[in-house]
């Protein structure tokens, strides 16, 4: 059951990205390019998503368990350290360079052509590098 609901959530998330036009790197860059012809769509998409999800998070903070019985796992909200800033900055550099973040890149795998695969494989490699350094330093 958890597998089915997770698949449905992924599917819905992907359809939302497509309808909102957020799988198009040109639109993402038009949002990021404040000095050009700024396209505010991404901000609108985020605001709309947050307006819908925020009540669910408010509810989740008061409930110990999810509907299917698992404990609700909410990430730490307070820790602001060098790792967070460094990671966000490196991610921002890659996002600005390619106009792709993880969600849209996975939706684009069926777009035809090799380009999305190159991005996703490189992303997996980058994640693997961090996991390996974490393990060797632990």
């Amino acid at each position: 059951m958890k597998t089915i609901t997770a698949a449905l959530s992924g599917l819905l998330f992907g359809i939302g990205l497509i309808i909102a036009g957020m799988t198009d790197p040109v639109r993402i860059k038009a949002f990021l390019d404040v000095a050009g012809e700024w396209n505010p769509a991404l901000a609108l998409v985020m605001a709309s998503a947050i307006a819908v999800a925020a009540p669910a998070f408010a509810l989740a903070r008061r409930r110990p368990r999810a509907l299917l019985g698992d404990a609700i796992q909410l990430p730490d909200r307070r820790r602001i350290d060098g790792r967070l800033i460094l990671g966000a900055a490196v991610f921002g550099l890659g996002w600005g360079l390619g106009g792709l973040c993880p969600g849209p890149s996975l939706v684009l795998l069926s777009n035809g052509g090799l380009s999305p695969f190159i991005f996703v494989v490189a992303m997996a490699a980058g994640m693997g590098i961090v996991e390996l350094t974490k393990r060797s330093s632990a």
Partner: protein
Amino acid sequence: MEAVIHAIAGGALIGIAAAGLLLINGRVAGISGIFAGALRPAATPWNLAFIGGLVAAGILARLAGFAAIPDTHLEPPLILAAAGLLVGIGTRIGNGCTSGHGVCGLSNLSPRSLVATLVFMAVAGLTVFIARHVV
């Protein structure tokens, strides 16, 4: 106007997907984290299923007649490889991307995610500015 409606409707679907995963499965819809989990040898089925759903959304859209994103909208392979590598490294070090920190973290009123979102948006904006207006 149509773009505004699409942005709001698409955003609402993303919000419903995140709310559903949280309240039904008890998990945060942070795509970089879920994808990293799906890559591990001990990947849990729900990680793989969520990523499968994302990929399936693209396939369904194509079957339903949604136009593909033109290849010219994507950067050349070498840039995409570098961008992908940086996105992979950065999201693991910073524990999240646009979905985890941007959508879910802000929905959860998390100061940590607010800082992450401001940093990655500012750096991404600066990157596009330099690539377009300076280089």
